[in-house]
């Protein structure tokens, strides 16, 4: 029992990392209907940016978050402008292949020895590590609490942004119908850029949390699996749906940790099994709405 609860805590920790990546996927998908394969690699750039700023200048935690989020946000906007915007009115699949190309480019470019290098690195201790034992049974680290704090601040910020600000309203309008939105005087291109900015900034924040929690960074290819898991989480929750992404991410994180406790291969495959089961019974994800079919 204690073991199960301890695993639950670990699962929530993993889910937190997934949630921030999944939100980026789902926001981008919601607005341009594009699976942004490069998102996972932007997350990777976030991890490395945090690593370098933290080790080079002894930067305080808060500043590291801000730097890493802004680097990712700029990267996201640039990628959107160069690679996705020219293809917006072309067949959907060509943008998807370009996204794959950008993803491959980021991975392999960052693996060059003079960029990030292909080697294993360990993430510095940004905040002195502390352990709290609750009821003399469960251990909770301060990293875990910080993760939860960062995520709740960012999530409430995002919620406020999307639902109570002008730009949020624009984002929702563009996601709903681009043509009508542009007729209402909304600058669609700028709104889409802004969505990329917010989504990739969240990936940057997630990068730091990942680095602090797991401390080992294998190589610039490290983004692939967290990225896919987060993407699956977004699909399970109903892609394009913000609360859905968070629900999916926690479901994914917790189930992965439990399955991992049995067998590491099983832990790897469980994400896909859950995905298949959810989509077969609920084809648009847990919280997704059914699209209207026009004849």
């Amino acid at each position, binding site marked *: 029992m204690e073991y199960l609860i301890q695993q639950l805590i670990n699962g929530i920790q993993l889910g937190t990392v997934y949630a921030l990546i999944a939100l980026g996927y789902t926001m981008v998908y919601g607005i341009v209907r594009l699976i942004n394969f490069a998102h996972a690699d932007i997350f990777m750039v976030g991890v490395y940016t945090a690593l370098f700023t933290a080790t080079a200048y002894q930067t305080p935690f808060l500043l590291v978050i801000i730097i890493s989020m802004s680097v990712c946000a700029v990267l996201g906007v640039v990628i959107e402008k160069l*690679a996705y915007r020219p293809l917006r009115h072309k067949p959907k699949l060509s943008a998807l292949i370009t996204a794959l190309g950008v993803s491959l*480019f980021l991975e392999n470019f960052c693996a060059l020895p003079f960029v990030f290098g292909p080697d294993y690195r360990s993430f510095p201790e940004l905040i002195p590590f502390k352990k709290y034992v609750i009821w003399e049974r469960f251990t909770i680290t301060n990293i875990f609490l910080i993760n939860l704090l960062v995520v709740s601040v960012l999530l409430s910020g995002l919620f406020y942004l999307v639902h109570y600000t002008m730009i949020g309203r624009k984002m929702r309008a563009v996601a709903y119908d681009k043509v009508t939105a542009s007729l209402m005087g909304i600058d669609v291109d700028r709104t889409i850029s802004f969505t990329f900015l917010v989504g990739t900034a969240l990936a940057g924040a997630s990068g730091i949390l990942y680095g602090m929690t797991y401390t080992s960074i294998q190589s610039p290819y490290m983004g692939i699996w967290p990225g896919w898991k987060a993407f699956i989480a977004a*699909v399970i929750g109903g892609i394009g749906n913000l609360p859905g992404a968070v629900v999916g991410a926690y479901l994914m994180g917790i189930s992965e940790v439990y399955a991992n406790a049995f067998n590491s291969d099983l832990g790897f495959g469980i994400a*896909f099994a859950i995905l298949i089961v959810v989509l*077969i019974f609920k084809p648009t994800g847990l919280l997704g709405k059914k699209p209207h079919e026009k004849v």
Partner: protein
Amino acid sequence: MRKFDGPKAKKFQLPAILLLAYILVIIAKQTGLLSSYFLQILMFIGINMVMTVSLGMINGFTGQFSIGHGGFMAIGAYTSAFITTLLTVRENPLGYLIFFISIVIGSAMTGLAGFLIGIPTLRLKGDYLAIVTMAFGEVIRTIIRVSEPLGGPRGISGIPAVTNVTTIFIFAIGSIWLIRNFLHSTYGRASRAIRDNEIAAELNGINTTKQKILVFTIAAVFAGASGALYAHILQFIHPDNFTFMKSLEYLIYLYIGGANSISGALVGATIFTIIPEVFRGLQIWRMVIYSIILILVMLFRPEGIMSDKELSFIQKKEDLFP
């Protein structure tokens, strides 16, 4: 001058060219002009062509979006490799026969898997379908990883290298010919109707579910056969040979070439199998350049190199192939 033998001569033009190409390759192989490295690339091109064309049946011609083709390849590869290593084909006088039978069994297994996966998943649409096919690909890989008789995470080694240029040559041409004929038939037209407008196709009396499952199963059979041949080139297979990156590779070949044409798939598979090999000398820069080429091709030819045009030998004369 009237053309006496125009059409008839044309009919034999393509087989003649293919035969000539084959003889040239065999001569080059026997005289040692082509090293085994080049022959291996040639064989990979053949396999990638069949994989891409069969993926094109689903993605290009039926308008469904599958990205789990690598999983089907894995089933074919593992089934046939399991049989040939079990029966030790290398010492067996009936080696080639067993190899052939193992390919057939491998493709049948893959077809069955495609059928079983197709029934529940083809209800889904668009990106949801894509993700589920990808998930099935990974589930297949996970099952292989945890099943001990198939070597688990260690894979199967010591597979006899019985695939050669001749096998690949016959296989590639035969499969492409079969797929082309399928796509030019009533079934192919039904597929294209589904791609263009599913509801209209249904109103015209096409059983869309049945058609989609049929195409999915046939594509899986070809993927399984390619996988079986692939295993007997590599001689060592491993679950990680068939990750979703493998599936994405075929997706890239298909959309680079142009998804709505068979020629596009052939061109895409050929060019993008060769490009990474050409840049092999650049080592660490290889994949960087590969990805830049990929992005540039997509930016300047968003509908693929061939768009929806066909090379003349694939075009069916009587049919206005859209």
